[in-house]
């Protein structure tokens, strides 16, 4: 197998008392689509940010392109970020700019392309996500799903080799979800993108994944091929896949002291 594009090595991260990553390790290989699943608040978005060099770690390191992100110089970090497309959970469009300007910004900043060329590229990428007719709208005029698609188009403008998606299909209708999934798998198959997809949606996870990982309590409890996940008997995975409310993944809600707390007997 090739060398990993990204190697997460024994990272730890705390926010106050909360341990988000507890000696977490994972290798991400070129051309692969890795799906990361996990409950809300388990640290999936934080992991993607850490891989962009936006979250200082308490321990361990993340190796990207042969270098540790924590020890990269400013220009090296910028080069790494330019090589990654990032779709934010909220879309994170620049609200003061039109959709077209949102897409054009990176090209204007990082390339010497003529404005007319940039405009053509903007149209091509907006067409890919089905938003070409909304070119001149402001982000506030778009729905949540449209913002996410615009965010996807914006990230594609950089023509990255690596792509991080933070819940690309959350909050979309089933048809748009399927379209986004198709887009992700197409990019991956045709352009040999390396992708990391964070998602809650089992259906879309199985549609795009080469490899899946389940993040729980600061560790990857299971890493494996989709088939292994599907047929797994592990109660953690079963609970996640079958969407059961009771199981090892459920919040420890502390039923014992609940009554006392409510009645203030303690």
């Amino acid at each position, binding site marked *: 197998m090739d060398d990993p594009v990204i190697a997460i090595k024994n990272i730890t991260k705390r926010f106050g008392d909360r341990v988000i990553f507890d000696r977490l390790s994972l290798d991400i290989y070129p051309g692969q689509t890795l799906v990361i699943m996990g409950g809300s608040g388990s640290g999936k978005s934080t992991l993607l940010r850490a891989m962009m060099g*936006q979250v200082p770690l308490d321990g361990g390191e993340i190796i990207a392109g042969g270098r540790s992100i924590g020890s990269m110089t400013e220009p090296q970090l910028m080069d790494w*970020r*330019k090589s990654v497309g990032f779709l*934010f959970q909220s879309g*994170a469009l*620049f*609200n003061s700019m039109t959709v077209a300007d949102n897409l054009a910004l*990176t090209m204007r*900043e990082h390339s*010497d392309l003529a404005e007319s060329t940039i405009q053509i590229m903007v149209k091509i990428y907006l067409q890919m996500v089905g938003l070409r007719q909304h070119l001149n709208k402001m982000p506030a005029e778009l729905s949540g799903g449209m913002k996410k698609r615009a965010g996807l188009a914006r990230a594609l403008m950089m023509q990255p080799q690596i792509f991080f998606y933070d819940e690309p299909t959350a909050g979309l209708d089933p048809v748009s979800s399927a379209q986004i999934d198709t887009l992700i798998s197409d990019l991956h198959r045709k352009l040999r993108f390396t992708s990391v997809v964070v998602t809650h949606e089992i259906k879309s996870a199985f549609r795009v994944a080469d490899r899946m990982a389940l993040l729980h309590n600061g560790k990857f409890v299971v890493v494996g091929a989709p088939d292994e996940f599907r047929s797994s008997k592990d109660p953690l995975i079963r609970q996640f896949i079958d969407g059961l409310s009771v199981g090892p993944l459920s919040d420890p809600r502390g039923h014992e002291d609940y009554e006392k707390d409510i009645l203030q007997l303690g």
Partner: protein
Amino acid sequence: MFRQAIEVLGDFGLMLYRALAAIHESLVGGRGSRIGRANLWWQMNRVGISSIPIVCLVLFCIGAILELQMAKPLANFGVVPLTADIVSLATFRELGPLVSAVVLTGFGGAAIAAELGTMVVGEEIEALEAQAIDPIRFLVVPRVLATIIMLVCLTVLGDLVAVFGGMTVGFFWLGIGVRQYLAHSREMLHVQDFVTGLIKAGVFGLLISSIACFMGLRVKGGAEGVGLATSRTVVYTIVALILVDLLFTSAFFYLGF
């Protein structure tokens, strides 16, 4: 508490340093370092133009007030026209830059803090970083430059309007002729009065915009955090303006300007 304050000041100093370095770099040139004229122009419009009427109104009144206040004591000595000297000197050296800066704090500073704070909340800053665009260069630098330029311009305007305010009162209520008033002003004012005022204005502009950017970029916790940062920006900036003003005025005093 004390340590925290030192840390915050350190962070502020670091941001200021990075902003100044980015300004320097954008002058030297190179791709990825330019700040964009259109962006700068837009910021100048936004920060400055809207505060022009208020600066004019406030400084006109201040000139008029000062004229009236000084008229009584000077009348006792029979030298009412000397009010022109006092009004001119006080505005050019002190009130012009300071009052314009306070007005701009309310307009530009608060707006910048709110805007950047909202961008933090909307993950826009992280999105910029993820696209390898430095928020300091892209957001802070144009705002700092625009505020400095606009405040210097506003101060020149404010100075003139304040003297005009004093002159109006002097003409209608104190019987000082326009020619006489202007002659007194001109005799009193030296180039360094004007220049020290403008230097102050430039420094105030840097202060207003950098505090606003700093507070905006540090916003935590949603819309509430934005509101808090905005009101704090105004308070901190005004305190900082007065302190720095004292510093500069004493420095000018000792240097004999």
